[in-house]
């Protein structure tokens, strides 16, 4: 690493050669605002011009440069605070605002908008450049993601994220000059584009241009109609929800979250971990059948609806490899509307199931025709982690002062540590291995944990697990860029794996498209490298909850055992197939 000498605001610093001025200034304790630059140049189009500073090289002139792309050089003088630089940044923001839909008070992004933040930071003046506005497209035809170009500042972060995570580039710039917009080709709806609805774009959008489609109104309506409203929460939510209330990233808030849900008036609050345990029973059994009866291998997990969308769209020839299991919250919803409703003496039509998920694709998943039977939809509404935060805030609950409470314990309150780790890449695999090991050997895996499958990034991990002489080759991928490598191997007949876990979002659900925004400008108490570490921190929140559980394997969950005894019979039984399994369709008309 070569160090060079630069001056920032008249102070000498040594910084790494090759850094941009923005990165170097951040390292030296300065904060230059930027809307387009993301972490480590994930997006570096220098399109927003909000990061302008004055830079002087050698005896050359002082010039305004975009610090997000301009590299530091030996002896460079950087000025951030000069009148020229501050007014240039202010003008950049004012120009962005001149073509922006300034309905800030009513905007869903209110409070987390980076444009509003830099407006304050730069001192942007009111209505400086009135004039024409670019024609607007608002797309909310999918149940998952809304695109509103009136709020888009053309920074390109969403384009870069879609490409970085999935290699998909569903979004792109189109047209030119004043008419430029960001959208799927031909300015189509996400509905008619090959988008997998993962929502990664919504996590990086600095404004309200890309957001989840809110379903809070649906939940309100269910309460108004006097339905029996049951809420179930995915494992990854507890690792992120605290961030909505200013807690440090990675703070597990399970107890407070349950307390909040109970105060919101839900008749029952359940953990989707129970559904995860159920998934393991079904999926583990399915895997054993495939291994012993010569079924299609490798088998691939099917919990992530973003991944399932991708499979149907891009690898329609490999759908036989997907486990037929529904995802945990769909399974649990189906059980709530059958087993639970029956026990309570309720008509399933009067039961309304709300899932809180780290995910935007789940909103689409719950509307699939396969996820519906004579009891109605398995799940009626899906809220993201962010929406749950909003729901709590508007209800007058002081989240941080809540006591820790417990899940309702009647018939699906128990869960294992294996269920908790479903929320992180490698977790479903590990949970499955814990149970498959037991099923094959009739004894528990001594170490409990399969650390070789753990991680929190998007890369591929693989392992060979020896189970009493049977070798099970497994692989894990998250993000479609990684998944594609494994899928192409299968397509070419070269795959050596028996079981593959694929999650849609890089790092798994802890980094899902519905999780709290990780925006350093709103996180003054986090470390500088938070964009590199937040996934690991959230993953640790889940692994530590796993460690605290007495029961660590899905098959040892006594309420799961009871559910099979009382209701389902055995894993993969006829009734289990009816309620808990699904089919895929490569020619899916995805939307009405």
């Amino acid at each position, binding site marked *: 690493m070569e160090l060079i000498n630069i001056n920032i605001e008249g102070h000498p610093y040594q910084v790494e050669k090759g850094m941009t001025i923005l990165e170097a200034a951040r390292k030296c304790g300065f904060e230059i605002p930027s809307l387009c630059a993301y972490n480590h140049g994930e997006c570096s189009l220098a399109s927003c011009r909000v990061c302008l500073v004055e830079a002087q090289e050698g005896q050359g002139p002082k010039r305004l440069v975009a610090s997000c792309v301009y590299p530091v050089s030996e002896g460079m003088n950087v000025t951030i605070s000069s009148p020229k630089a501050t007014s240039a940044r202010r003008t950049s923001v004012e120009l962005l605002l001149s073509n922006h839909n300034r309905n800030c008070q009513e905007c869903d992004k209110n409070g987390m908008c980076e444009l509003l933040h830099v407006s304050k930071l730069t001192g942007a003046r009111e209505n400086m450049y009135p004039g024409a506005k670019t024609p607007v497209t608002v797309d909310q035809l999918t149940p998952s993601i809304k695109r509103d170009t009136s709020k888009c500042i053309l920074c390109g972060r969403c384009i870069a994220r879609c*490409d970085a995570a999935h290699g*998909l580039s569903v979004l792109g710039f189109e047209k*030119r000059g004043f008419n430029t917009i960001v959208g*799927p080709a031909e300015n189509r709806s996400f509905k008619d584009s090959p988008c997998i609805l993962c929502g990664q774009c919504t996590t990086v959008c600095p404004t309200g241009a890309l957001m989840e489609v809110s379903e809070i109104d649906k939940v309100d309506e269910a309460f108004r109609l006097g339905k029996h409203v049951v809420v179930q929460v995915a494992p990854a939510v507890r690792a992120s929800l605290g961030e909505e209330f200013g807690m440090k990233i990675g703070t597990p808030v399970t107890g407070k979250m349950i307390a909040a849900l109970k105060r919101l008036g839900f008749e029952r609050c359940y953990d989707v971990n129970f559904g995860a345990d159920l998934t393991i029973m079904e999926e583990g059994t399915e895997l054993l059948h495939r291994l012993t009866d010569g079924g299609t291998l490798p088998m691939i997990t099917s919990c992530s609806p973003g991944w399932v969308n991708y499979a149907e769209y891009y690898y329609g020839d490999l759908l036989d490899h997907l486990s037929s299991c529904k995802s945990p919250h769909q399974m649990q919803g189906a059980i709530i509307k059958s087993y639970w409703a029956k026990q309570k003496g309720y008509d399933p039509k009067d039961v309304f199931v709300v899932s809180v998920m780290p995910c935007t694709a789940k909103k689409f998943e719950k509307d699939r025709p396969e996820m519906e039977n004579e009891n109605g939809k398995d799940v009626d509404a899906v809220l993201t982690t962010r929406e749950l935060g909003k729901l709590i805030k508007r209800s007058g609950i002081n989240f941080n002062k809540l006591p820790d409470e417990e899940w309702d314990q009647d018939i699906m309150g128990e869960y294992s540590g294996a269920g908790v780790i479903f929320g992180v890449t490698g977790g479903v695999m590990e949970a499955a291995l814990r149970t498959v090991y037991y099923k094959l050997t009739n004894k528990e895996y001594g170490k409990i944990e399969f650390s070789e499958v753990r991680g929190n990034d998007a890369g591929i991990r693989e392992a060979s697990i020896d189970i009493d002489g049977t070798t099970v080759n497994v692989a894990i991928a998250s993000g479609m860029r990684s998944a594609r490598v494994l899928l192409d191997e299968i397509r070419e007949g070269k795959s050596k794996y028996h079981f593959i876990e694929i999650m849609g979002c890089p790092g798994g659900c802890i980094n899902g498209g519905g999780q709290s925004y990780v925006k350093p400008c709103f996180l003054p108490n986090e470390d500088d490298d938070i964009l590199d570490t937040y996934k690991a921190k959230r993953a640790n929140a889940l692994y530590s909850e796993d460690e605290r559980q007495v029961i660590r394997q899905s098959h040892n969950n006594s309420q799961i055992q009871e559910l099979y005894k009382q209701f389902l019979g055995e894993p993969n039984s006829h009734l289990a197939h009816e309620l808990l399994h699904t089919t895929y369709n490569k020619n899916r008309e995805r939307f009405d």
Partner: protein
Amino acid sequence: MAKLSGEAIKVITEICDRYKDEETPLMMILSDIQKEYGYIPLEVQELVSEKTGIAVAEIYGVVTFYSFFSLKPKGKNVIGCCLGTACYVKGAQQVIDKFSELLGIKPGETSEDGLFTLDALRCIGACGIAPAVQINGTVYPKMSVDQVPGLIDLYKNEGAA
């Protein structure tokens, strides 16, 4: 992609293959397709995407960025009126308005009989002979509104013959 004929798929595949060793082949491929067919509809972009691995959204972005590329078929005669600064101050707007009026189409559109497409061009580098009009590659210098009807007739008759 059902709309493309087998022949078209063959030709476009051949064009893509032509540049497969290029680091950034997209502009060359699109230029060749534009020259060959006169337009680049979305189905063709999807095929190019499949052949090159470049995302459709990106290809669409390039096609809509450059006025040289077209999403719709162009007419037999393409009239390009330069609206660059020099041409504009010399009255190019009146010239294009006259074409528009007589042909009954707006800039960017093609007449129903398929004979004429009217385009507004950015500077074509003919500032010395402003305002300049380009029809099928031939440049007409120092155009005036009065010359417009004659020029249309000239190409219309050529079209009939």
